[in-house]
């Protein structure tokens, strides 16, 4: 008996790449702005980055409908938190919330590859990286999405710091300055755009530091 394939799938992959880098007192989160389906481009100007709280920004690639649903859910939960606690949710708190939210759909997952960036309670940069069902880890830098296999080895080469699991513990803060980190991110995307068809058009960069949130754009190859 041949396997029956369903005629319709609830999932689609809209492509794109996200990167986040944590520094001593800043965090850089970036994503391209191309949204595709198969070999077609749906739009050249779609933001994959969402501000969840004052000190917490999420970038997600994958199936953008699931990403949109996830962003709405987290925004609503954050609003309830603000009403109950009279303050913004911290980045580590939001990280745990995102993990649980993803896991509650363990049997019908959000097709969403997320990277969360922000400032922790001490003002240091933090980046959390996720898989599709919610397993997460705090890291110094991460990339997710179609171009992640191109970008991650490069970031490992430039930024690799001693593992937090080593004993005796070694300091793991990225020594780069904010401007150097932004420059590194631009370099990553310029290269990924060359070799990944789903990463292109424009790069949106969000920088979080004690002065607040700052957003800038860079043009990428449009082909």
């Amino acid at each position: 008996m041949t396997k029956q394939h369903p005629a319709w799938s609830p999932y689609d992959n809209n492509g794109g790449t996200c990167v986040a880098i944590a520094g001593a007192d800043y965090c850089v989160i970036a994503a391209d702005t191309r949204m595709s389906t198969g070999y077609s481009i749906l739009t050249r100007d779609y933001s994959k980055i969402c501000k969840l709280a004052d000190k917490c920004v999420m970038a997600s690639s994958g199936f953008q409908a699931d990403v949109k649903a996830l962003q709405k859910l987290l925004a609503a939960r954050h609003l309830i938190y603000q009403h109950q606690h009279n303050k913004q949710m911290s980045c580590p708190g939001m990280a745990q919330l995102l993990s649980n939210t993803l896991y509650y759909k363990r049997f019908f997952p959000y097709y969403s590859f997320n990277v969360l960036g922000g400032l922790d309670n001490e003002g240091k940069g933090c980046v959390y990286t996720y898989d599709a069902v919610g397993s997460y880890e705090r890291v110094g830098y991460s990339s997710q999405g179609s171009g992640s296999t191109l970008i991650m080895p490069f970031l490992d080469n430039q930024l690799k710091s001693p593992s937090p699991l080593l004993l005796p513990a070694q300091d793991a803060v990225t020594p780069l300055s904010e401007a150097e980190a932004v420059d590194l991110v631009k370099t990553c995307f310029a290269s990924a755009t060359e070799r990944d068809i789903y990463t292109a058009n424009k790069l949106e960069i969000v920088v979080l530091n004690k002065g607040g949130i700052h957003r800038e754009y860079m043009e990428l190859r449009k082909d």
Partner: protein
Amino acid sequence: MKLDTSGLESTSPFFGSGDELCPELSAAPSFSLPLSTDFDEFQKDTKATLKHAKGTTTLAFIFKEGVMVAADSRASMGGYISSQSVKKIIEINPYMLGTMAGGAADCQFWHRNLGIKCRLHELANKRRISVTGASKLLANILYSYRGMGLSVGTMIAGWDETGPGLYYVDSEGGRLKGTRFSVGSGSPYAYGVLDSGYKFDMSIEEAAELARRAIYHATFRDAASGGVASVYYVGPNGWKKLSGDDVGELHYHYYPVTPSTVEQEMAEVAGA
């Protein structure tokens, strides 16, 4: 069959008190399930592309002084290494550890859930939960979800009133009491080293070295294991992390590069 969702009930007292404009948000969180009878087959091809993180080597054994627990730190998604610094030894409470093998999200979520239940037990009964009890709680939950595609192969190691305790619990619903276990894709290699070197009468340092070597050898031969070999000891006063060593460095520590004897040496030609 009624699923054991007690761990998912919200602990917040304010959850239901909001007005019912958004009942989904104020209701206690629960798993959203697809409208299908066979969860394993549901969207199997797409879930395969999601390739959630797994692949590992973990081990634990009881010896004279207590329990030794060790693990690697690599998470792989298909052929891609998604992380080299995953914490696979989870600290449930100061005297109990859990190891992670299989789906990373499954292990993280259910161990955290187990930690919550253990704490509730302490508050309700004014005494710590036993390792037997904690492993039974976890095994019952996993049995409830049997057949739905969870992938969990964990060991619960701890020290309670009866002394050292070690249980293996998996997502098929199995629960085994034992003195020596290794779980994960690298476990056959770890068993080889562990079984040949094991003695009940070992000092803590000897046992730690055995555990470290077993993990190192597994990472050497298993592609899905690597990163940092962490070793924990559980004694009467709780657990303590003994070491965390990069397996690449352990390799040269165990097998240092010795300069070979030179028979003929090429001399520099002057002025050529």
